[in-house]
């Protein structure tokens, strides 16, 4: 047994060393890298089919490159890609079903390393300093095995697991604190937990609406949009928008949507305005005002609104094919009137849009 452990330790040491070397050996390229500027679309693929991929799209030059991870690194990305975290010169791709994180140079997409242990049903990642934090559901049916894993960005080694409440999903950093929205895994949860990024200890839990799906820092506020419990829950509940003071970490105010069947998503701030979606419609919210009732417009070309971003007066939507097989679309709309500006074919089941 001891020999086995020793061997493992030895092999890990070698592996870590080589990763470290990689970091030092590959400075940022001087010339413009292949993916210097443009959009990454993450295609989750089909569950169990190991056909996740990343598309790169450059609108100005009308470039649309499919499967860039596999093309550059010669190996498939994996099964059910969940999210990408972009930070300085790296991109960390969380591959949910494969239980791994592929870390690449965000400008060349060349692999820097793979984290494939100490993860269990990983969802999203966030970076604070030299630490990579990853939310994990564990066994989706077990409410008590959820955790946030901490890895070192220097050598991709595992540092520790921070046990948290059920279903940690999106993470956001502010002032050295990590805010974790708990959707609830296979069940429903309604908290944001706060982790101290220095001690890596759970500092606080803040109650919000059920199934928090978006967390946004705006000034000294943390805005949390919760979709509410769906129709198949024991009791359907309305979506809720919560404002948390980042100094006190207390809820300042919260607004509930008027009808239990309203389940909003995709809270985005753009040029001082706030947007969210309900089904395929886009709503605008004025801070300090009432929750919107009438949509700005409806995005008719979308089959399923699976990824949604707003950048520079444009809405970007990742829309899978309606039966979730085959290639999906990146649809680009004018934020002012909701008119369709452009569309690009993506890989299978696009779920996220990331700007490089």
């Amino acid at each position, binding site marked *: 047994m001891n020999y086995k452990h020793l061997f493992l330790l030895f092999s890990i040491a070698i592996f870590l060393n080589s990763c470290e070397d990689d970091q030092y050996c590959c400075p940022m390229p001087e010339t413009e890298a292949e993916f210097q500027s443009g959009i990454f679309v993450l295609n989750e693929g*089909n569950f*169990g*089919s*190991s*056909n996740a991929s990343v598309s790169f799209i450059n609108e100005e030059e009308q470039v649309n490159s499919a499967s860039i991870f596999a093309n550059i690194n010669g190996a*498939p990305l*994996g*099964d*059910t890609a969940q999210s990408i975290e972009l930070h300085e010169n790296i991109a960390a791709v969380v*591959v949910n*079903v*494969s*239980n791994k994180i592929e870390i690449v140079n965000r400008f060349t997409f060349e692999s820097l390393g793979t984290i494939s242990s100490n993860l269990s049903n990983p969802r999203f990642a966030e970076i604070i300093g030299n630490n990579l934090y990853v939310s994990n559901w564990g*066994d*989706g*049916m*077990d409410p008590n095995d959820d955790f946030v894993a901490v890895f070192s960005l220097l050598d991709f080694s595992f540092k520790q697991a921070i046990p948290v409440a059920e279903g940690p999903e999106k993470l956001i950093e502010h002032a050295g604190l990590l805010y974790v929205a708990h959707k609830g895994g296979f069940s429903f949860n309604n908290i944001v937990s706060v982790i101290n990024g220095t001690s890596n200890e759970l500092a606080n839990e803040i109650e919000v609406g059920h199934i928090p799906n978006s967390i946004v820092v705006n000034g000294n506020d943390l805005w949390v949009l919760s979709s509410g419990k*769906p*129709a*198949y829950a024991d009791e359907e509940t309305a979506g809720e928008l919560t404002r948390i003071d980042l100094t006190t970490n207390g809820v300042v105010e919260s607004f509930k949507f008027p009808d239990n069947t309203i*389940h909003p998503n995709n809270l985005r701030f753009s040029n001082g305005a706030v947007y969210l979606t309900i*089904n*395929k419609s886009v709503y605008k919210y004025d801070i300090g005002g009432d929750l919107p009732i009438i949509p700005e417009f409806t995005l008719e070309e979308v089959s*399923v*609104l*699976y990824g949604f971003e707003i950048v520079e007066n444009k809405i970007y939507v990742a829309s899978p*094919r*309606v*039966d*979730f*097989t*085959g*290639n999906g679309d990146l649809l680009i709309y004018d934020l002012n009137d909701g008119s369709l500006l452009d569309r690009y074919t993506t890989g*299978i089941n696009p779920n996220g849009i990331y700007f490089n």
Partner: protein
Amino acid sequence: MNRNIFLLFIIIGCSCLDTVAQNDSINWLDEVRLSDVRLKTNSEGQLVKVLDDSIIQQSEPLLTSILKFNSPFFFRENGYGMVSSASVRGTGASQTAVVWNGININSQFTGQTDFNTINTKVFDNISLRPGGGSVVYGSGAIGGTIHLNNEFTFSGNSVNQLNLGYGSFDTYQATYNGKFSNETTSLNIGLTGISSENDFEYRGTDIYNENGDFYNASFSASLAQWVGDSNIFKFYSNYYQGDRGFSGTITQPSNSKYEDRNSRNLLEWKAFTGNFTSSLKFAWLGEAFKYYENRDSGNYSFGEANTGIIKYDLGYEFSSEKKLNFIADYTSVKGKGAGIENETREIGGVSVLWNHSIEDLKYKLSLRQEITEEYNSPLLFSAGASYQFSENYLLRINSSRNFRIPTFNDLYWPNGGNLDLDPETSIQAEIGNEFSFNELNLNLTAYFIDIDNLIRWVPDEAGLWRPVNTAEANNYGLELFADWTSNLLGKPLNLSGTYAFTRSIDKETDKQLIYTPKHKGTISAGYDIEGFSLFWQSLYNGSIYTSSDNAYEIEAYLLSNFRVGYTISSKPEIGLSVQVNNLFNEKYQSLPSRIMPGRSLQSTLTFNF
């Protein structure tokens, strides 16, 4: 309208012709021997291909394995021994009915049968009946029906067979079948089991098939007892128990486990009175599963359904050429689990079947109407005829309307079940040609199926997956079954083959439906000489699309198995055989990222006494 009057006229006219009472001993024999006499009497215009006992005992035990090498049907397998579903004539997994001794055993939850949860060794024959069959076999009989049958003999003999097997990947098998009878009692017992570590290497990688271990065991008993000379009681029972780790994929490890427990029981009282044949059947079926996402934890989800069926079938023989059957039945299904609270579904049904032969012309007409509260049931029909033009050529035609009813998951699944579903319905027609010569038998069938109201799970506006009646499809194609017996150096050489050309077109997009190959073929050859038996089988699966935009596909593959058997002793009969599966070590998969085993060995010792 005119046609209906014409049919009515025929029926009335026929019944007046002659009323000579005549006990047809041949028919009686079938009624007694067979568990599912309808398969023989109500398949006019359709081919019924029988895979007999010897094919079953020489094949691998799971239903997928035997059918993929002996039929033109396509199978999607999540791995060897893992979840498997059939595509017959380009239809979906829930559009093929598996029928055990005349009773439809497709799952109440999924509407389909997992073909790797049927251990075939305890059945006397497996019959393939491509084409519609809902009038007699109920929901899901659109693409075809697959029949698992036990048969009785009253020969007075007792026969015992024991098989022991060992093969690659720590695979152990054992089967015992015993048949005992006298003139009034017949008893068959079958017991079989297989267990395998199933830890083969994925060809072309250094990854092994982890967590794919499985075992299953099946017990079967059938008992027939004459009471007097015109009443017979028949009882059939089958129990299946299987545990499987669900294997991962190339990039996805798995630690899940699935347990199946299925029981099937059927009691029949058959009485022969003058020209009447009366059959009263009680059937009760139980299906239960447990799914562990993490096999090391105690957390699981489960499903459990119990089905009770009462069926009365009264037949009247106007003459040996004309027979009318009236059937009334009632089915009650109780299901719970996997988020479904106790739900009960009750279905009542009435059917009328008419069979008539006029010299070389045989035809049948049948109608069925079901009544249930959950959905609107269409009037089902089947009309078929065959005409023997010459001793070498038989023409068959058949047309039918069939359906697939919404499953418990479709209706009651907590995260999206839809109570507003209609059954999937099909109208279909086929023309079959049978060419028979001394050594050669060819069956060539062309068919067309128009399927409406296809139930698909698609996300709604809010992204919630729900089943809806959304798509329509046209399937058409050709199906060939061929058998040829010849001589080589004075010893018999048997060749058989199947081929299917299948188009399965989504009416809206004009694209081929996913997971339906355009081409599938099989061929096998057996030759016996000097106590040795040599056997070869191959199958070809054409490429299949994995996405509805037909942008992604899985490549075609060709598989071959080779077996050598030797008879060690003839009394008692002891035989030893060694089979090489996937002889050419082909890397293949029927579902994305699920690599199937490369070359492997299987040895079997057989005792007949």
